[in-house]
């Protein structure tokens, strides 16, 4: 009977969910980072950065594990290329969060009063998008259970549509941030460029979350 255990390989689904959990944990630190920047607490910024680094490192470990466990000789219920693309998008969430924390830490950035509200709104919306993407990935085992068809897949399709709407909202919030920011260009000077970069990066996290959902859509359709 040992052969049947060898025949049925380890499912990559649980590791995928673990990876997403770690990646979204990085994004969830962004509001804390924004809070630390608005009171100008450089030590708190460094602490948040350290937390993000730790979870990003964990995510990388899981990512390599998944890649190693997907040899070509496996017949997968999920198209291998689709799965790896979902994994890439998940990983980008962690990477971009890490970039944001790095820049904030390196430049010791203090958030101007006027920018506080729009950036906080953007960050919380982005986290909401990430959390929805995570719950979509958590449906993967239910999808497998039902053979990727029928009611369960319709359910997930609906969640993916919701995620698309959330991402659109973050675009609008990003637009508001940038307008406020460019209005302050004269007083901020060169810092404008860095704040602009930071705002774009925060918004980019939501793009990656949306991409996780869209890639999953392909994967269901097979």
């Amino acid at each position, binding site marked *: *009977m040992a052969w049947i255990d*060898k025949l*049925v390989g380890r499912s*990559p689904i649980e590791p995928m969910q673990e990876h997403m959990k770690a990646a979204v944990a990085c994004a969830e630190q962004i509001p804390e980072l924004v809070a630390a920047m608005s009171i100008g607490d450089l030590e708190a910024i460094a602490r948040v950065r350290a937390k993000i680094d730790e979870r990003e490192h964990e995510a990388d470990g899981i990512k390599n594990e998944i890649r190693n466990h997907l040899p070509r000789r*496996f017949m997968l219920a999920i198209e291998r290329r689709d799965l790896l693309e979902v994994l890439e998008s998940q990983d980008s969430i962690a990477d971009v969060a890490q970039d944001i924390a790095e820049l904030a830490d390196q430049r010791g950035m203090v958030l101007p009063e006027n920018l506080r509200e729009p950036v906080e709104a953007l960050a919380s919306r982005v986290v909401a998008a990430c959390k929805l993407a995570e719950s979509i990935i958590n449906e993967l085992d239910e999808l497998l*259970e*039902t*053979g990727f068809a*029928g009611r369960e897949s319709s359910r997930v399709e609906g969640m993916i549509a919701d995620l698309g709407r959330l991402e659109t909202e973050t675009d609008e919030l990003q637009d508001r941030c940038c307008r406020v920011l460019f209005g302050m260009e004269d007083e901020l000077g060169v810092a404008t460029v860095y704040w602009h970069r930071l705002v774009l990066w925060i918004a980019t996290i939501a793009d990656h979350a949306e991409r996780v959902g869209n890639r999953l859509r392909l994967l269901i359709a097979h």
Partner: protein
Amino acid sequence: MAWAIGANDVANAMGTSVGSGALTIRGAIIVAAVLEFGGAFLAGGHVTNTVRKGMLDMNLVTEEAILYGMLAALASAATLLLAATRFGLPVSTTHSIVGAIVGFGAIAIGPDAVNWAKVGQIVLSWLTSPLLSGVLAFAIFNLTRRAVLDRPDPMTEVRRVGPFFFFYVFFIMGLVTLFKGLKNLKLDLDLPEALGGSVVLGLVGMAFGYFVLRRVDAGEEVEGNRFGQVERVFVVLQILTACAVAFAHGSNDVANSIGPLAAVVSVVEGGGVAAKAPVEPWMLAVGGLGIVLGLGTWGYRVMETVGKKITELTPSRGFSAELAAATTIVLASRMGIPISTTHTLVGAVLGVGMARGIAAIDLRVVGSIVASWVATLPIAAALAIFFFYFFKGLLS
């Protein structure tokens, strides 16, 4: 030989149930023992006859050749099995006995003595049996998906649909037993009678299934795992199909040990080579007992290693694969074709995989299993030839 079959193959039927926690090891051994014996005793006659005299042209074979040859076949297959079990290779008992008989027949008596048509039929079944069981598993899994998993309330559905599967299993086991299977017990029913009896049996099974499925405790619903409860109900169905596989396995594999024995006995009792003497019930009982002994002694150890592993095969998948495999084996048994249980199970697992029901299947393992089957034939044949001359030198 029967002992080796019991020790080696039992896990095929029961392993998934033990692995998914559906049965304790002790429970699995007891259930398997009862059903393996039942399958061997009630439905093992057809295949046994094939192994006994279907593969060799009995008009060309001398009594002496049969005596030594069948002993050689048994020794060869048993040696192979023990060696394979020792190295953890999945070697088919059926293939080793077929290879051995063809080997000694072709060399010791001459290629003309081998009934190549029958052997061809058996060889062809090595292709068709995994194929058939794969197609069946694909269909059964899709059926359970549509009828149960893909419904607003899977729990109600599984309890509604479950009894029909009970009916099916009891019906098909009844049919293979009743339809000309009980010659030995002076109970030779024709098709209508057998059908009627099987339907009655199926209905009894259905009522039993209805009762059991109603009472099964599915536990609390766990957040984030919406199918956990349904899978727990599927455990019951999986035990049912594991039993069906054990029964089917007994009916097909008892022949590997008893066929050669029956041939030897008929020679020793002066019945001649081509005697029409049927396989006696006591022989099937001996074979069944041997399998049960192997189960109880060595099967335990095999089960323990299996039971400790967390299997990726959830009950609903195990159920689909096993039901397909059992059906295929029972059909083959009825037609008197010896086939490999491992073979049909691999085919069934691949079938569920094709339906996107299993996350990952290692195709290299499929390859190595197939390769080991192919290699079994010449090795079994060579060993049989060696043992043939060895026994001939020893006893004459």
